[in-house]
């Protein structure tokens, strides 16, 4: 397997293209592509890939990029795209369609701050806004995981027990534009890992069906429940996909959840993506100093890995969740998910949310140390903590009372009806 120094975007573009190429003995491949910083290099690489049986359609918007991808997938092809931030927001309607049509498409998303104001740096708010859609969501920590999880995503999505689209996410610039030594697959390996796709419900003239027509509530309930049951099967199928990955590529791809030093930990940090890499360094040094601190790295948002979370927190009394996102009026999405997952099972656990690196700010080891200090002092969980906020905005004063439009009736005077 060739080792090369590549960016995260390069790894993603290559993995998507090779996965598409692997379907050349079946219905082929297609991608609708549209550029957005910091995803652009992905679609450039896809556009330049010499497909034997594939077409890259350079469309006029993200909405159409997913539209083309849906059409190609409905026709039985292996279909994919990539986007980011406001592009994902523009694409939302068709993202939902791909999920409800149970199309095994794969999208790489480069997590970028939603605007306005304009900010191109890392923030997971864009893909987390899709959390209630029928899409499996994976979050990569580094370039290797981007390559591996992108390939694994196709295998997972296309499994007949799953048939759900998969989103593979990476942090803007920190991964997308940073070069790192990465083991890249050969086409022969990808061919072995991704067998020809045979979509059971593809459109075909010999079996005319109408997709997406009107359904009554009872049928809608059945369809929703089928999605729920498919999500229930994802953890098991995901592990099978990892095992098959090991068999073909000779190394292990990242898991949905990874726990470090959580065995007898009193305090557990929960982190995702690149923040997890820094957090691991902090936890390791704290452990070396004898502190009972552990780290849980989450790489799967949907379905939410509740069992692994509970297992990792078995000995813990407090959890600190590092969120590089902000859900208005709530705080961090991951913290919120974790609180919901523990509800009724581990009500004794103190869960505190920390908003770190919002809008692409650096999350350094010092910042994570601050989190651990705060977490260690807590008796009760509180509102989300804005880590590293040095210049808080002044609280706006309440407006002066306005004169009523109708003068009040003087006291002692009877109001006329």
């Amino acid at each position, binding site marked *: 397997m060739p080792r090369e120094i590549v960016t995260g975007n390069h790894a993603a573009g290559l993995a998507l293209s090779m996965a598409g190429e692997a379907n050349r003995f079946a219905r082929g491949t297609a991608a609708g592509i549209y550029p957005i910083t910091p995803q652009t290099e992905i679609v450039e690489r896809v556009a330049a890939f010499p497909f034997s049986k594939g077409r890259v359609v350079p469309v006029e918007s993200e*909405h159409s990029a997913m539209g083309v991808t849906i059409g190609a997938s409905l026709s039985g092809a292996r279909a994919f795209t990539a986007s980011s931030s406001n592009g994902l927001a523009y694409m939302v*309607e068709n993202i939902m369609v791909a999920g409800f049509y149970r199309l095994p498409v794969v999208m790489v998303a480069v997590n970028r701050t939603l605007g306005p104001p304009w900010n191109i740096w890392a923030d997971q708010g864009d893909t987390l806004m899709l959390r209630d859609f029928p899409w499996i969501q994976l979050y990569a920590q580094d370039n290797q995981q981007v390559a591996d999880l992108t390939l694994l995503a196709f295998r997972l999505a296309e499994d007949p027990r799953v048939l759900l689209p998969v989103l593979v996410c990476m942090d803007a610039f920190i991964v997308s534009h940073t070069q790192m030594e990465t083991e890249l697959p050969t086409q022969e390996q990808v061919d072995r890992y991704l067998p020809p796709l045979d979509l059971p419900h593809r459109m075909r003239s010999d079996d005319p069906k109408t997709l997406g027509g009107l359904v009554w509530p009872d049928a809608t309930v059945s369809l929703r429940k089928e999605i729920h049951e498919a999500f229930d099967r994802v953890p098991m199928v995901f592990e099978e996909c990892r095992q098959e990955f090991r068999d073909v590529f000779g190394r292990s791809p990242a898991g949905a959840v990874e726990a470090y030093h959580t065995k007898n930990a009193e305090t557990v940090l929960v982190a995702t993506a690149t923040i997890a890499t820094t957090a691991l360094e902090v936890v390791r040094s704290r452990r070396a100093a004898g502190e009972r601190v552990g780290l849980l790295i989450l790489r799967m948002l949907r379905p939410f890995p509740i069992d692994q979370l509970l297992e990792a927190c078995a000995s813990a009394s407090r959890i600190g969740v590092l969120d590089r996102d902000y859900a208005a009026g709530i705080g961090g999405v991951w913290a919120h998910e974790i609180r919901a997952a523990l509800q009724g099972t581990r009500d004794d656990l103190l869960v505190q949310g920390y908003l770190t690196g919002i809008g692409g700010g650096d999350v350094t080891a010092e910042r994570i140390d601050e989190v651990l200090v705060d977490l260690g002092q807590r008796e009760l969980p509180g509102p989300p903590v804005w880590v590293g906020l040095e210049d808080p905005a002044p609280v706006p004063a309440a407006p002066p009372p306005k004169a009523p439009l109708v003068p009040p009736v003087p006291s002692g005077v009877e109001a006329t009806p």
Partner: protein
Amino acid sequence: MSTTELPVNGSAPRRDMPGEIPPLSCEPLLRPGNTNCGGCGMSIGLTWLGRALEDLEQKAHLAIPACCGAVTAGAFPTTSYAMPTVATTFAAAPAVASGLASIRDLNGSEEQVICWAGDGGTYDIGFATLSAAAERNENILYICYDNEIYGNTGGQRSSATPPGARTTTTPHGKSESKKDVMSIMAAHGIPYAATLSVGHPEDFRQKLHTALTTSGMRFLLMHSPCPTGWKSEPAESVQLVRLAVRSGLFPLFEVFGGQRYRINAEPDWADPTEYFRRQRRFRPEEVDLGTTRRWARERFQRLKVLAEAFPA
């Protein structure tokens, strides 16, 4: 009930209807039992599309955005469409069709990929997607059944609504003109663009045949009567759109490659008063007949100049 009779045939040049229409040898594209309104132009258009496909021994996959045509399918598990059909999001039909057509072509399959869309999905929300598909010269057939209204939502204005027409969002009559979508589509230089009227079946059939035997992007604009939205008599649908052709309100023409023009029916400039009077969406005081007729004549004159200078 109106007191005057609508002119049925008029003096406009037309081909005779074939004496006998042979029965279909396959299932019709639009199955019986669908819930389309009486007098709906779309029902006629879909029927003739199915017949043209059969004439040419072709099959088709349909991509239908949100519009009456999506409702035509009926409720799961039944469907009124006898061909594979996908309901797309409102703005996405040409994009989804591009994906379908790409994979069809990669696999050497023969079936047509057809977008069947209303004027809202064509002139308004889906226009960027349509323009982009035309610019890429996607190998798809796009048919817009233009009933000049958002029919599915109960009759709101679109940019295809003609001036003066009352809709639920133009309660005093639309003050803007109808978007000239044909000129815009022709300006993309696509292989084939043509207008269709369900009042001219032979012309309709010929253009479907041309479209179905041309490759690349093809755009057909069909004037589609909507008794519910137009507040007209279902039985008069065909006469109404015939009168629109005769009076020059809806010219029948073809554009090849965005360059070569052919006019298919010469208007006899019949008085369009009845066209407006027979549709209660128009109020006499809100339709400027003089301006409308002058506009129609000038538009036709421009087409004529183009057809003479650049004949197909």
